[in-house]
């Protein structure tokens, strides 16, 4: 990865952080569905970046979100988990042509169906880890599980909207 790409990723982290901390942290639907759009950052890290830099960038992203929402360690743990799983998941769902011409796996380049398959498990794993770590126990299991499902749906929707708003002009290599 060139240093230019790193700088771009750093700008992305800052923008996602501000959006999450100032706007989306306060957006809770029906008191159940949380908007955690910053995971779109982890989904949209360029494929050329190595596993190590993906992990480090995701940790930074999660840690900053933690500092802004007073949940030290919670978002970092969940975000690092999905950053670790992402390359493995990408390998499992390799499309017929491979990823040869793909810079960033956006909805425009990869197609709607592939994108849904790519996104849903990652969102779900992230929310599952996040909400149970935050609760610190399995005591209110169904209450938390309802939160996980509703938040996953809500974030899937938001991430797709983000695709059409901010990732429209990503060019394939």
């Amino acid at each position, binding site marked *: 990865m060139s240093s230019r790409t790193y700088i771009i990723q750093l700008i992305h982290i800052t923008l996602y952080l501000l959006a999450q901390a100032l706007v989306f942290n306060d957006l809770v639907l029906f008191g159940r569905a949380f908007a955690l759009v910053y995971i779109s950052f982890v989904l949209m890290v360029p494929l050329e970046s190595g596993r190590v830099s993906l992990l480090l960038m995701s940790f930074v992203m999660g840690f900053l979100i933690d*500092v802004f*929402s007073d949940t030290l360690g919670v978002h*970092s*743990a969940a975000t690092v988990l999905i950053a670790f799983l992402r390359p493995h998941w990408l390998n499992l769902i390799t499309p017929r042509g491979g990823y040869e011409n793909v810079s960033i796996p956006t909805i425009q380049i990869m197609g709607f169906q592939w994108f849904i398959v790519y996104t849903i498990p990652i969102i779900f794993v992230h929310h599952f880890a996040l909400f149970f770590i935050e609760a610190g126990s399995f005591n209110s299991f169904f209450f938390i599980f309802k939160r996980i499902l509703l938040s996953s749906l809500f974030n899937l929707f938001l991430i797709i909207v983000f695709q059409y708003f901010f990732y429209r002009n990503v060019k394939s290599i």
Partner: protein
Amino acid sequence: MRRLLQLIHYYRAFLLFLVLEFVSLILLVRFNPYHSASFFYSSNVLTGKIFTLRNNIAQYFSLVSKNEELAYENALLREQYYKLRHEFRTGTSLLPEESKNFEPFEFVNATVINNSTRKFHNFITINAGAANGLEPGMGVIGPSGIIGKVFSVSENYATISSALNIDVLTSAVIKSDGTFCTARWSGEDPRYINLLYVPRHISVQKGDSVVTSGFNPVFPSDIMIGIIEDVSLKESESFYNVKVALSTDFYTLSQVYVIKNPLAEERNRLEENLFMP
């Protein structure tokens, strides 16, 4: 040695993953505010500035309702003032015993700049800090009741662990009969808090007020917590399940008061000695 290094290099992503998860876990478990700086919380300078900036913009949209709230509180205080003045003049209040028990609380006024209600551990950020004399552990109240305790402070900002935090326990009494109990949030509904340790031989009525006990120096006595909404008792349990409707609306917090008790340290020291002969 070479093989070992090769092995480490081969599994570097997995190892880094383990290291980062371990770091997160340490952050999660080890960060006790009383021992750490405020840097990792929303009370740090950068976070505080950013939240203040947002609040400066956002507060214009709720000026009317905030004004009404403050005017209402003013009216309430004025009423109390006249009542006390009357009692003072007629000599029905401030008897010698009462004035001896008086603890000289001071109040620091602050504005909420960030707030959450939907997590299991909710925190509030306010725009007053060490410069205003705030310290971790101080009590925080609002116009209509308790809010929480100061958790961590920086020079100009402070993070408060809200009463909506499953780790915060508040010492409480049921006003009608003086039953001592503990208030703790269940983590599910931000409008209600639960009472623990209300023994079954007591008759608890729906509609009773629950207030702070004043048994520790965090809150003065008689600060409103809420009103009992629902009482249930299982056959096998020795304590009631009591659900209390919070008097504070945590969704719309704006003005809060931090309580400084100049005698807190002296009292803590004295009470600590009781347990350490």
